């Protein structure tokens, strides 16, 4: 296999990885702070993609406006379901919230199909030929997608590590009782959390919709991949989610050069298995003593 092909595969894997890092980060934040795996993340992405299609139909075809409005709409959706469902389940076992999130996933997807049907939609974005650097091809669309994802990821890391709100979020993640006792408003942290989850899932959905096609199963199909990469990076670790997704994306693309492309996902899971055998807590996970 010549190195140009491998570099192309790595670039492709990195773009997919960066894009899916947005929902992966959303999953890991919910797990870290609200302490349950949010299975509705995939369908929040789908909602974002459909919101983008709607925006282009009725408001504006500008991609910036589309991405902004669709992310905001998904943010509102996430806040709505937090207020309606997850808030009341906060003191119950995480399993209750997990099951509720699966229910929400179905509600969102079925509502979308009810109104939009099963046919695929498209987010209008200009198709531009790739830049060719002696065989290494970079798609301009991919570059914009990767850059948008990278900026969004940087923004959330900034929020978490350099603002007082971020400090409060991390405090709640570490120990909710202690944080609450020291006067941190859990409610405000939760509202911020769910806004971020919605914005990120929505943006991820829009970027994915630009790259692929918009269908009701768009996000749901990716949920396993997202969860796997979150586990790979270490549950609850934001940097881990991003690195996990990147490693997953790149390893599946490079793997597909050596085995049948039908097996590339298997290979990616094999990489996860190898990493977890060496570091059972994930790449950036902490070992937490159970009392």
């Amino acid at each position, binding site marked *: 296999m010549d190195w140009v*092909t491998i570099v*192309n*595969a790595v670039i*492709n*894997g990195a*773009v*997919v990885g960066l*894009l*899916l890092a947005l929902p992966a980060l959303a999953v890991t934040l919910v797990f870290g702070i609200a302490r349950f795996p949010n299975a509705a993340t995939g369908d929040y992405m789908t909602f974002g993609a459909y919101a983008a299609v709607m925006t282009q139909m009725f408001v504006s075809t500008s991609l910036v406006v589309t991405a902004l409005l669709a992310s905001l709409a998904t943010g509102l959706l996430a806040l709505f379901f937090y207020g309606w469902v997850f808030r009341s389940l906060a003191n119950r076992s995480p399993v209750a919230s997990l099951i509720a999130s699966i229910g929400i996933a179905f509600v969102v997807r079925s509502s979308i*199909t009810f109104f939009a*049907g*099963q*046919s*695929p939609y*498209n987010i209008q974005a200009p*198709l*531009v*030929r*790739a830049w*060719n650097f002696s065989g290494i*091809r970079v*798609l*301009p*669309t991919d570059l914009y997608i990767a850059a948008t994802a990278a900026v969004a990821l940087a923004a959330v890391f900034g929020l978490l590590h350099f603002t007082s709100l971020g400090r409060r979020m991390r405090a709640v993640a570490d120990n909710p009782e202690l944080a609450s006792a020291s006067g941190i408003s859990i409610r405000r942290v939760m509202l911020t959390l769910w806004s971020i989850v919605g914005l990120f899932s929505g943006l991820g959905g829009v970027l*994915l919709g630009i*790259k*692929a*096609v918009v*269908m*009701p*199963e768009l996000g749901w*199909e*990716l949920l396993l991949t997202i969860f796997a990469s979150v586990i790979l990076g270490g549950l609850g670790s934001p940097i881990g989610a991003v690195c996990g997704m990147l490693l997953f994306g790149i390893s599946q*693309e490079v793997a*597909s*050069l050596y085995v*049948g*492309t*039908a*097996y*590339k*996902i298997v290979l990616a899971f094999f990489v996860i298995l190898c990493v977890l055998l060496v570091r059972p807590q994930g790449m950036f996970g902490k070992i937490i003593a159970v009392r």
Partner: protein
Amino acid sequence: MVRSLVANRRQFGQLAAGLAAALAGSGAAFAQGAQPFRLGALNSITGAGGAYGPGMLEAIKIAMTQVNDAGGAAGRKFELFAEDDQTKPDAAVLAVKKLVEINRVEAVVGIWPSSVQLATLPITNAAGITSFNTCGAPEIEMVDKEDLVWQFYASNKMIGRVFAEVAKARGFKNPAVLAYNNSTMVAQAEYFRKTWEEGGGKVGEFIVYEPNQTSYRTELDRALATKPDIVVLSSYTPDVTILLKEWYQSGAENKFITPGWAVTQKVADILGPEISSQITTISNVPASNNDAYAKFVDAFKKVTGTEPEMFAACAYDMVIVLALAIELAGPTATPKEIASKIRSVTNAPGTKVSTFIEGRDLLKKGEEIDYEGASSSLEFGEFGNTTPAFGVYGFDDNKLALKEVMTLPS
């Protein structure tokens, strides 16, 4: 003690006699009017086939209404039980079990994907009921030992062959293949390769890819590695849309051949003329100069306000063919006896008919009929398969246009 037992026995005898009389009475009442025919519709309403399933169900209802309004087939009116197979074999098995065991349907119509037909076939065949599909997987012909399964769309054996014939006729030398990983699409690609290699050609890369992905760039890169002049895309609409977007952006310059269901007018609208002009699609030609097709399109537009897809015409034909076969087999015929009449009402010789009423009236006079369907002229072969004519389509100025009609020597 003994007395009461005797008394009980007598009472029981009276009860039993009464019950028997009541049953006999109700039996007599049933025999007076023909029983309704319990029709199962198994459609891909959701999932990858979701673009076609709802239209097929609509077509089934249109055909059913036509038969019922005409007084039923052999006096039996259709009663519909509809299920969604989600385009998934596991969901389809549950759905068909419900149709067969609970609703007691006597035929299943409207099956779209081969994976569903292959999964449900053992159940319907064991129950001795007919099933009607638009599938293309060649192995269906081999698995159906009871002659109960009827294919209303061309087998992929043939579609693959037509791909090779068209590529050869247009002077392409170096093809590559990208196939969606399922029995239908891989079979189509395999038959393309077989026909191409029998003609002395060679196939560059033969890539089978896993569906439901964000990007297919690496697969595409591998397919394009041998610099093909034509790529055979055996796939469905969502994947093909992503693949073609990525192909255009990659800067490669080759042509494509795809099945007609993958690249529709809607896909061309999304992708634009620069991409669509590179694509040739091949599908069953609907019998557009046929009376049945014209009438069906009118009826379909009246109900839904949209043009029917190719598969909707197939679904419509399934019900009409079934009704004609019931008419010929008689009101008390079993599903197997009905199945044995299907070739008699669709294949030549016989007077050509295009509606249920025309066919029924001729059958009543004892004449032979040859139903010319809305989807094709419907001549069923040894394995319950059809050999339709194929339309080779291109896109002129981003509009789907029929270039030529091909028939395969069988």
